[in-house]
């Protein structure tokens, strides 16, 4: 009888512990933008669910509303997201306003080293203050602004001959920004297969970040700097340097002479549409979209090729991409950290790249087969070696919107000169930094 009681008590204990173990399985919500890589992450995360017992939910917001929606969520201390793949520019605000959990101790305890990730991505996506070993995110998605073009048009003999006749050189991937413009102007309003096509789709969007991300693709290769001395906020002579003025004038000329009509407010979606509909010979966009473009049945495969943002005075690409952070308002931080640990595993990172995500892990990037693994892999590596990012200050939104206004006013709305636009931008940014107590 006593044995029976003991057996019952034992069974009860086992049952209780099973229940307890089940209760520890959490429903985690990961927030990110709604785009191709997000679908790859859903697929990848099934492995985490199987291994951890946690359930993954996803909140994907379209890009135009992503910053608004997520920053509102963070500012209100919302618990919607346990994990957030936030834009690189949010890291300052995320850290200073206490939205993100500092990950240093967690990394140390779990043997995650930031040396295992590409230095540019660690600097841009994880650290605050910039460059210090204070980590608030794990590099999740490396990205930069690159270019893609109609390879089938570039290879056509009639087009090649016409280009040679017009410019005196061979039609090929551009080696400089000025060559890029020349090619775009060559294709502008050209008849190809009975259809009028245009040079290139570039970013001109006004509302969020579009035109800034586009114009920096010209500014960085010309040698644009935000400050004369890093950390001093001394912008006069840097932001409005002669090189910056020339680059801005170049971008305006590009917009006026080599883009399709009506592209006054276009960003990622419009660029993809213009290319896929056969309207443009070239287009700029984030590397994140390149796997999808390559797989496109109409304009992908043999018809498309990719190139890194061409240099001018120097190499330079606009940084995209994001790090993954644990939201400090989450009640499930332990489970969220488990996800980070799982995600940092080199095997998972390799699978992430296979599925269409851009791993920033050295084990993936330095793999001898990486460059040939995708037609754009080599360009991605090259771009990540020369990326520059926008201000990552806590007041980044004010800084960004000021630039959106000044650049759009000059490039699209024809107001003032390039020098005036950049001078006004310095005034706006100075006001912001004064408010911040940094000037």
């Amino acid at each position, binding site marked *: 009888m006593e044995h029976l009681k003991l057996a019952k008590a034992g069974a009860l204990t086992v049952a209780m512990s099973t229940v307890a173990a089940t209760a520890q399985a959490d429903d985690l919500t990961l927030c990110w933008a709604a785009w191709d890589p997000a679908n790859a992450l859903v697929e990848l995360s099934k492995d985490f669910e199987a291994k951890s017992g946690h359930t993954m939910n996803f909140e994907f917001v379209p890009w135009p509303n992503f910053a608004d929606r997520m920053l509102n969520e963070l*500012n209100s201390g919302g618990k919607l997201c346990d994990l957030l793949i936030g834009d690189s520019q949010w890291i300052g605000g995320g850290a200073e*306003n206490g939205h993100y959990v500092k990950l240093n101790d967690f990394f140390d305890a779990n043997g995650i080293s930031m040396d295992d990730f590409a230095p540019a991505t660690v600097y841009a996506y994880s650290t605050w203050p910039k460059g210090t070993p204070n980590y608030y995110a794990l590099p999740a998605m490396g990205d930069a602004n690159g270019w893609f073009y109609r390879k089938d048009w570039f290879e056509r003999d009639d087009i090649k001959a016409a280009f040679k006749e017009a410019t005196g050189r061979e039609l090929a991937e551009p080696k400089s920004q000025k060559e890029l413009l020349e090619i775009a102007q060559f294709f502008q309003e050209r008849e190809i297969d009975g259809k009028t096509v245009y040079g290139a789709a570039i970013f001109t969007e006004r509302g969020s970040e579009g035109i800034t991300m586009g114009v920096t693709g010209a500014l960085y290769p010309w040698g644009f700097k935000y400050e004369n001395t890093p950390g001093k906020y001394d912008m006069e002579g840097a932001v409005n340097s002669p090189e910056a003025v020339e680059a801005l004038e170049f971008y305006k000329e590009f917009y006026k002479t080599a883009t399709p009509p009506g592209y006054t407010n276009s960003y990622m979606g419009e660029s993809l549409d213009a290319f896929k509909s056969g309207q443009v010979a070239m287009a700029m966009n984030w590397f994140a979209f390149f796997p999808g473009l390559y797989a496109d049945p109409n304009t992908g495969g043999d018809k498309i090729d990719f190139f890194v943002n061409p240099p001018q005075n120097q190499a330079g690409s606009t940084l995209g991409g994001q790090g993954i952070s644990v939201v400090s308002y989450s009640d499930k931080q332990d489970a969220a950290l488990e996800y980070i640990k799982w995600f940092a595993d080199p095997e998972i990172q390799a699978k992430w790249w296979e599925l269409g995500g851009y791993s920033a892990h050295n084990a993936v990037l330095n793999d001898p087969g990486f460059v040939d693994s995708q037609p754009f892999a080599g360009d991605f590596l090259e771009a990540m070696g020369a990326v520059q990012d926008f201000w990552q200050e806590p007041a980044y939104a004010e800084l960004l919107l000021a630039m959106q*206004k000044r650049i759009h006013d000059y490039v699209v709305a024809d107001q003032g000169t390039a020098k005036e636009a950049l001078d006004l931008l310095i005034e706006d940014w100075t006001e912001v930094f004064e408010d911040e107590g940094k000037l």
Partner: protein
Amino acid sequence: MSERTIDTVAAATPEKVARKIRGLSDRAIAWLFVGPTIFLLLAINIFPLIWTIQLSFTNYKANRVGREVKNIGLRNYERILTDSDIWLNMQATAHFLFWTIFFQVLIGFTLAWLINKKFKGNDLWTTVIVLPMMLSPAVVGNFWKFLYQPQIGLFNYIVSFFTGAEPSSFEMLGQVNLAPWSIVIVDTWMWTPFVMLICLAGLRSIPDYIYEAAEIDRASKLRQFFTITIPMVLPFLMLAVLFRGIENFKMFDLVVQLTGGGPGSTTELTSINLKREAFEKWRTGYASAYAIILFVTVFGLASIYVKALNKVKER
């Protein structure tokens, strides 16, 4: 009859409740009814207004919880009123307001006057004309964005048909000189039916015997129009102008869908600019001052206008 109702209600009131009410004065009962409304009004209108006024004198930013909030006096007001960009936004808003109201009143009144004539299919035409204002502004914005598309848009082709200009030679939403008119056209298309309905109500309220008397006095149709129709419809027209003026002063959704405030800041109306300051830049103190300035402007203009409206009614 009413005494009977009162008796019935009194008899049906439970004794406990009746005893409590019996001790209350008329004033107390009045407060009992009005109290919840006043509480709600204070909670959702007056309190936020007072709080906004208070915030407008600070450097508060809603996204920077730990940041020290400093009282900066009239600095926000000074910055707003001396900011040339904000005056450009005000100009864009004034342009939008003036021309939308002008066209809506002109076309709305004309349509109402035509519809008021008894003809076959009168009701069908009224329904058809009223359709645009039943649509969501977001839908209308997207719909017109396609119509204005320089390569495939119907609008450009229609203009091209009449003028001979190449359809892709002009961009309604992308050109600085055309974008302000593009939003005026869409708002007029959408809201003219509203003005028409109000005018129609005014026209139908004019008794036929006045026109009959004028006919007997041999007043011409033109004279009848200017001495009977216009004066009697004027209060209705002014009401329509007031409604459209207030609505268009806070216009946001339609313009955001169409132009996003661009090109540059050409169509950035004050409401769009205010939203950017408050919820994108998170300059809460600054945006509060901005909102107070706009509130005072609208309130002041509306008060003057309502006084004028009352004078017209009294005539």
